[in-house]
């Protein structure tokens, strides 16, 4: 629903799957009512648009999956309340992929052949995206992921795979470089897990940072199986101004605690990616050493004093409080830095379907071309995280990043990067591939 001032105003603070379904129940009842069914079967124009949601409901991604599901339900409700897409309601069909690439591919097939969805959407974990994209390409199924991996922009996926609702890790690491060089410190030592996730940071951060006068003085890769870190800290050069850390996994809290014990009250400044502590209460015991440190956030977890009405409406719709935790369940901290991508991706699908005059699966190629033709997403109710630029050749969106400082138990935004800060030279062109 859109109010007079153009802001989405959800009616309820907590959206459940059922709320989405209630609306659909009306559609389903119509479908079952004989004459209506015949009409839909003939024209399909009033039947719901089916969006296959490839969800991490079980497996390693389940904690993220819960919030992706809540955000998806909230966005679907908001879209349906405002009239749906091309006058048709949308129906979210959820399939669990077990956060497993093989099942991911099976789920895409099931969406295409069994559920006959119009598009597939919502995948987060990179290996599932990489495992599912070939199936989507082969079945000519538009596949909109919310993964933040560089794999889409790299050109290694295919014409049917898009990432229009969240920036990729390459852009994120590039974008924070100037701020660190100009405001935090010139000499950076990077501590990162010694595998692909860490390599993205190792490979993509230095260029823009050093172009802005900074210098990476140390690289400390840490084996992913490590659970105690103190013996790595002596490798951090003494002249380091800033420690750039991107540790992930269950041992992150131990990492922070040991770093605090190593440096005591002094030491270099800290810059981290909130990925490390996504869905974790930042005021937890053991994290005191992070006070004063800086974090990248895809979207602020804590409600900022200058938050726009669009941001407030989004947060209310998804059901998070001023601390970024579930309304009514303050210990259930959301994955705020990533889940907005679900909301925005669904609105991109809406925009592209409307641009393509999408009627049904026969229009999937038109939908792909219409998505590729998108260029700008203005900040607002549909894109509360901020304005974005879409590159149709590499199927990747670019946007602002937030840098927040942890003070008094809250992450306060101190800088919002420009979209250009994260831009890099495209290395692919999907539009040359046949449809």
């Amino acid at each position, binding site marked *: 629903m859109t109010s007079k001032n153009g802001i989405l105003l959800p009616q309820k603070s907590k959206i459940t*799957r*059922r709320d989405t*379904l209630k609306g*659909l*129940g009306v559609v*389903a009842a119509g479908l079952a009512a004989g004459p209506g069914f015949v009409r839909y079967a003939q024209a399909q124009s009033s039947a719901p648009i089916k969006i296959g949601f490839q*969800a991490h*409901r*079980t*497996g*390693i991604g389940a904690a993220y999956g*819960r919030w992706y*599901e809540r955000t998806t339900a909230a966005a679907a409700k908001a879209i349906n309340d405002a009239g749906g897409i091309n006058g048709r309601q949308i129906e979210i*069909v*959820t*399939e*669990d992929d*077990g*956060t497993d*690439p*093989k099942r*991911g*591919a*099976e789920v*895409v*097939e099931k969406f295409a052949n069994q559920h006959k969805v119009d598009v597939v959407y919502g995948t987060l974990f*990179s290996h599932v995206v*990489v495992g599912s*994209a070939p199936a989507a390409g*082969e079945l000519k199924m538009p596949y909109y992921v919310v*993964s*933040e991996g*560089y*794999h889409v922009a790299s050109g*290694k996926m295919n014409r049917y795979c898009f990432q229009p609702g969240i920036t990729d890790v390459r852009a994120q690491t590039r974008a924070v470089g100037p701020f660190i060089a100009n405001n935090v410190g010139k000499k950076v030592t990077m501590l990162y897990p010694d*595998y*692909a*996730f860490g*390599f993205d940071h190792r490979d993509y951060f230095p260029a823009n940072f050093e172009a802005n006068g900074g210098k990476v003085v140390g690289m400390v890769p840490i084996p*992913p*199986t490590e*659970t105690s870190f103190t013996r790595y800290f002596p490798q951090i050069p003494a002249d380091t101004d800033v420690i750039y850390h991107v540790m*992930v*996994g*269950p*041992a*992150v*809290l131990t990492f922070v605690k040991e770093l605090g014990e190593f440096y005591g009250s002094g030491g270099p400044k800290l810059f981290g990616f909130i*990925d490390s*502590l996504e*869905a*974790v209460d930042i005021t*937890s*015991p053991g994290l005191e050493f992070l006070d004063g440190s800086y974090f990248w956030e895809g979207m602020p977890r804590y409600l900022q004093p200058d938050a726009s009405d669009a941001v407030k409406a989004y947060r209310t719709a998804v059901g998070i409080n001023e601390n970024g*935790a*579930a309304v009514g*369940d*303050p*210990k*259930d901290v959301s994955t705020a830095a990533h889940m907005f991508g679900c909301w925005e991706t669904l609105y991109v699908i809406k925009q592209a379907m409307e641009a393509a005059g999408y009627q049904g699966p026969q229009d999937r190629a038109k939908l792909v071309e219409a998505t590729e033709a998108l260029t700008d997403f203005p900040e607002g109710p549909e894109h509360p995280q901020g304005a974005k630029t879409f590159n149709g050749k590499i199927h990747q969106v670019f946007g602002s990043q937030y840098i927040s400082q942890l003070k008094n138990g809250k992450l306060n935004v101190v800088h919002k990067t420009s979209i250009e800060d994260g831009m890099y030279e495209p290395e692919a062109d999907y539009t040359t591939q046949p449809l």
Partner: protein
Amino acid sequence: MAGRGRGIRRSAVAAATLFAGTSAALAHAGDRGFVLLLPTGYYIIGGALAVAVSFAVLALLPASALARAAGWRGRLTGPLPDSRTIVSLASFAVVCCLLYAGFAGSRDPLSNPLPLVFWTVWWIGLTLAVGLFGNLWRWLDPWYGPWRLVSGMLPRGAPLALPAPLGWWPAVALFLGFAWFELVDLAPEDPQRLATVLGLYWLANFAGMLLFGHAEWTRRVECFSVFFGLVSRLSPLGRGRDGSLDLALPGARAAGQEPLPLSATFFLLLALAAVSFDGLSRTFVWLSLLGINPLEFPGRSAVLAPNTAGLIAAFAALAGVFFACVWLGCRLAGMGGDLVRAAGLFVWSLLPIALAYHFAHYLTALVINGQYGLAAISDPLSRGWNLFGTAGYHVLAGATAGHESAWVIWNLQAAAIVAGHVLGVAIAHVQALRLTGEERRAAVAEFPLAALMVGYTVLGLWLLSTPTGY
């Protein structure tokens, strides 16, 4: 189409392997991260000491006094009316509804009631309830009522008899299949897949009951009847000889049991091994052993073969160590005797350990998925219904999140593990007396098993506190 499907899956896995280098995994700190900050090492030492000291204290006490205490029964009611048929028919009706929901309801395993009721309410919850309140499964068994109805229409009783040499091995085989499905199969929570498997399981067992009789079939073949029958021996509540409800000390019924046959001994060992392997298979240690980066666990499809082997290896290892301890105990006590009988007596002592680990291992899943289940049963077919008024229930995922919850959960887990092992030591003590018939030799015979229990306490607490990949 099928051929094309296989092609797509193959290319998907190949692509996932090829492009693994572009990955941006998001393994998050999660609840185990908070457990890592707790002084779990002290708990492990303390737990091991508590179990060791329990053994020492029991060794000094006369086992006969313990045996007498275990034999105590307090009669709570008169004979209870036998309404098994009615309850079972109602249970069967619920099963049918759930199976229908599995096929026709939501595709989301956290919205469809079948996986939530089966895995969370039934497998996790009912097992605990049976351990606490007695064999509720005897009533809820969804075969008994239909079997009574159908077999009543047949001219005579069961036409066939189960061959005695089969022992309980069919139940061992079925339970191994179940454990594999739960721990290794690609999608045990997929509603349709689960409905298919459970539907076939019900039909096959129903046919078996018609052919061989319900009593024999549930005693030696249908693995959940066997499992719940064993677990119920831990409960303070039980059925007296005349069908009345009586009270006993926790675990006392297990301590008073006759030796289990060899096949049933293996059944119990398998039950404990399976839940232990579920814990082990998620640890950094196991994943590293497989050469998998625990921070980017690639999904079950990547570990089908090694986890199948691991499950069997865990079973074999536990059985090997257990029999070695029993053999050594008999040797130390100067008993030649019957190893199978000794093992059949001592294996009862593993029962409380299996139940304690079941509780500790599944506690968070019970709390979270139980809430999803509450919401799902009100709208089983995802049609916007609200049968029980819980359809809009907002799952409080914070119940297990954060530092405080981690502390509470860890303490509950540690308490359960230690209590389970102490009870195990006590049961072993009574059974050792039965085996040896003499106080001093009983303590000696039990000694290696007590050492195993100290070791298993350490293992159990370690599994619950070590870093896990997922």
